[in-house]
């Protein structure tokens, strides 16, 4: 008895989107030729926040590991960059990768402790470890201790490719640097999203969802639940570490308070993922856009800005628990990054 059925993941909207996504990426590469430096800086902030949001979404949305300590890896990645560039004069671009590697190495002992905890305890534990990391780094005198430090001007100026971009777009040295950093942010965001999507489409993605839904049942069908959780945690630490290094390469100034900020690198990230739609790749994209619109709109209202952001978050959680993307998906029947393995019967079944 065989079935005239096939298994499909792609949808019509996802095939159209794939073409559109390629076009958008190519347009984004050439964007610096057409827009002002201010917009390039905004795009840098949007792309880095998007990359962080995708890392947290992999961890919490797909893996069910709700962490409020991702700022640990942003900070560790950033400080790694300042250490190797500022103290040893490493190449800044290569140092971004090192930021990710160091964050990943620190994530190993972190995971060892955290995976003894579950749910809310895991969340609080991750925050505690991030604070420990912040306080430890504040003791490190060579990178400025508690007050922080700046990158040497020479290394900032001598970033590879600066002269080439200056000539290409006929801009100042600092504008050229912003363009290079924007391109790196673009590469990082696209690469992280591609990696996460490929992961989720493979067998391991199915396993991760099973573990999130029910770890005991997952083990009973042969899924190594702890190995899958470890992998998810380490990937998201690696990603956050690279993004952290990139963000602080752009600001060229670091302090423990800024690098390990729970508000900037976790609270805003959670806001973006939750209002956009947790457990989807589309959600964080939508969430980042909404976040930046709100942020610009509310910039003149001082601290009321955070109150309004919080209120917007609560409203979305109550009226659209699946996030804005969930609302849109149900209305329009769209999927841009499909993961469902759908069974499609290709002809009348005669065996019944």
């Amino acid at each position, binding site marked *: *008895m*065989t*079935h005239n*059925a096939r*298994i499909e993941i792609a949808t019509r909207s996802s095939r159209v989107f794939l073409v559109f996504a390629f076009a958008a990426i190519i347009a984004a590469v050439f964007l610096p030729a057409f827009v002002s430096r201010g917009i390039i800086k905004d795009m840098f902030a949007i792309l880095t926040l998007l990359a962080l949001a995708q890392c947290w979404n992999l961890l919490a949305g797909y893996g069910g590991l709700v962490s409020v300590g991702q700022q640990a890896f942003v900070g560790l990645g950033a400080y790694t960059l300042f250490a190797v560039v500022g103290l040893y004069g490493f190449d800044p671009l290569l140092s971004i990768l090192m930021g990710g590697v160091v964050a990943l190495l620190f994530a190993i002992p972190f995971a060892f402790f955290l995976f003894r905890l579950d749910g809310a305890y895991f969340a609080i534990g991750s925050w505690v470890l991030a604070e420990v990391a912040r306080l430890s780094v504040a003791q490190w005198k060579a990178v400025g201790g508690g007050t922080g430090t700046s990158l040497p001007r020479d290394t900032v100026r001598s970033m590879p490719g600066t002269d080439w971009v200056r000539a290409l777009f006929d801009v100042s040295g600092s504008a050229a640097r912003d363009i290079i950093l924007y391109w790196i942010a673009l590469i990082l965001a696209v690469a992280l999203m591609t990696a996460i999507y490929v992961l989720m489409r493979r*067998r391991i993605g*199915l*396993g991760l*969802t*099973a573990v*999130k*839904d*029910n770890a*005991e*049942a*997952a*083990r*009973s*069908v*042969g*899924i*190594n*639940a702890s190995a899958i959780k470890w992998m998810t945690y380490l990937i998201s630490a690696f990603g956050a570490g690279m993004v952290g290094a990139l963000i602080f390469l752009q600001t060229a100034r670091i302090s423990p308070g800024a690098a390990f900020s729970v508000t900037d690198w976790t609270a805003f990230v959670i806001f973006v993922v939750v209002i956009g739609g947790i*457990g989807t790749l589309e959600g964080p994209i939508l969430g980042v856009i909404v976040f930046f619109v709100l942020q610009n709109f509310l910039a003149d209202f001082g601290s009321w800005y955070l109150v309004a952001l919080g209120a917007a978050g609560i409203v979305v959680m109550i009226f659209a628990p699946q996030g804005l993307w969930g609302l849109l998906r149900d209305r329009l029947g769209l999927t841009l990054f499909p993961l*469902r*393995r*759908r*069974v499609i019967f290709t002809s009348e079944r005669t*065996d019944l």
Partner: protein
Amino acid sequence: MAFLKLADVSKSFGALTVADKVSLEVPKGEALGIVGPNGAGKSTLFNLITGNLRPDEGKITFKDQDITKVPANRRIHAGIGRSFQVPQPFGSLTVFENLLAAASFGRNASEQDVAQDCLEILETTELMAVVNTPAAGLPLLNRKRLEMARALATQPDLLLLDEIAGGLTDGECVALTDTIRSVNAQGVTIIWIEHVLHALTAVVQRLAVLDFGKVIAQGNPTEVMGSDAVREIYLGADS
């Protein structure tokens, strides 16, 4: 050498002994039924066999291998599959994806290699109509079927069924019993915990009775159910 053998297996939670020197042998191809009052340690026994619990004492061997300390996810690769008493589907996955996850990880194969087989299991367990439905929304009968289908998808040599017939109507029960009998006929060894006795005795060749973590009787189903020890537990005779 027995297919599955438990030798003096004990497990306590504090002062509560849930398995008290349980010794049990199951030959290959047998269907063994396990009955006993609530709290007798039946589900605990399953958790010890599947590795969800570790015994305090004793030894469990499966296919002549000592599996006492082997973790749950590796026992499935040795050939032990199970269904849970309270259905535990992967709620955000569809019925088909539930099987795909179980089959691909349980057999260590690619999704493509097991997809066709998953469809066939869904056919025999009568789940074809809900193949693309997320498991979280399924009613009880389909959840029970899914428990069974998912266990079968891992292609077990030993299948542990925990109260798979509980809460079903007589008609539903008959259909499920037929499926279990045909699985057993294909050579899969089965251990089945059940309160619905007529369903159980229609399938199993041997019956074991558990009470206070001890095996108090085992043998031919009719004889065991008629024995004094069993009558005492269920009917409170001689009290």
